């Protein structure tokens, strides 16, 4: 019976999320790590939002499976989410003389796969959009795509590839997290460029310009994110081995 009521509640949640996503698309607003509130034309907001929906839904199902199959692993899920919370709240000065913050999505992607992280990422983005005027509700779709989908997918893919190539695990985690972070900003640049093609040179020239703003600032931060992810994975490896085994963390390494 509990199972039934749970499935019901989950369906309700998914439906609510769908309605919410639709209402967002209808009532245009925008976010910042993000792309700032109101900085993306309405059509783009809707398009990115719709593009995110399948991933976010997959995330719901993936988390539901985790919850049902191994509740013990929830502690790791909570920690991955909390890690994103912490990491994305730290604004760190960079060599370019401006501040930026990291995404922290690599950890969740490596442990649980990318779709799971899309949910965690959306929570953080909503928090920042509503309370901090950082990012925005209209650009939520675009920001979700860059931070909670594109970045984690790259991190996860890279990690899987590197562990298949038998690269040292910590090195793979470092590279996956760092490049995932960097990729998030590349996607953000691309999103801005698509919305604002340069008058001479079009999308490509514009993308380069935006990359010029984000990339140099982000490179050192990506390195920090890689380092912090490795640190927390070391901590988990020494204290949460049973849970890591449950979610198949050791499976890929033969």
């Amino acid at each position, binding site marked *: 019976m509990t199972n039934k009521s749970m499935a019901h509640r989950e369906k309700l949640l998914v439906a609510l999320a769908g309605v919410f996503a639709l209402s967002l698309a209808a009532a*245009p*607003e925008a976010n*910042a*790590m993000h*792309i*700032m509130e*109101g*900085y993306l*034309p309405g059509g783009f907001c809707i398009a990115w939002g719709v593009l995110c929906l399948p991933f976010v839904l997959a995330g719901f199902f993936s988390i539901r499976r985790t919850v049902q199959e191994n509740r013990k692993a929830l*502690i790791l899920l*909570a*920690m991955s*989410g*909390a*890690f*994103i*919370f*912490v990491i*994305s*709240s*730290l*604004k*760190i*000065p*960079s*060599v*370019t*003389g*401006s*501040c*930026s913050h990291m995404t922290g999505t690599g950890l969740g992607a490596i442990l649980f796969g990318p779709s799971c992280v899309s949910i965690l990422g959306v929570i*953080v983005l909503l928090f920042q*959009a*509503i*309370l*901090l*005027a*950082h*990012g*925005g*509700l209209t650009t939520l779709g675009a920001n979700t795509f860059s931070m909670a989908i594109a970045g984690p997918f790259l991190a996860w893919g890279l990690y899987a590839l590197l562990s298949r190539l038998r690269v040292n695990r910590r090195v793979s985690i470092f590279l996956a997290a760092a490049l995932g972070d960097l990729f998030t900003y590349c996607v953000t640049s691309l999103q*801005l460029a698509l919305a*604002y093609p*340069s008058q001479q040179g079009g999308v490509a020239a514009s993308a380069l*310009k*935006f990359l010029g*703003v*984000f990339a140099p*600032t*982000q490179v*050192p931060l990506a*390195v*920090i994110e890689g*380092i*912090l992810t*490795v*640190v927390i994975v070391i*901590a988990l490896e*020494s*204290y949460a081995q049973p849970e890591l085994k449950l979610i198949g963390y050791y499976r890929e390494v033969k």
Partner: protein
Amino acid sequence: MKKKHMSKNTKTVLILLVIAVLIAVVPLFARKGASFGGSDDAGSVMVEEVRGASYEPWSTPVLENLLGGELPGEVESLIFCVQTGIGVGIIAFCMGRLVERKKWMKKYEKEQEETEEDGGIARDHAGDR
């Protein structure tokens, strides 16, 4: 041997954390005059540059609408701290549990071994009698 392994991990973690802090702090000294504004803001400046015209955001953040102005800087840092606090709280709570559990598990395993040994000894004594 296990202990040696642990201390190697600890060393790695410490070195990594020092590097991370250095990367974060060095720019402050290297670029003394810089304002360290957000790169998101730099992004919006770039939007204007690429468009060749000033850009009026067509929507403003919810909270700014409600407040009728920008969130005060101090309050913004408060909320950022709240965000960090929530995250750190959860991580610290979970890590605390896991660390305690490991200690407890070790103790339990040791006791298990000891009771097995004790059992053997007790039986021997019984034989003596």
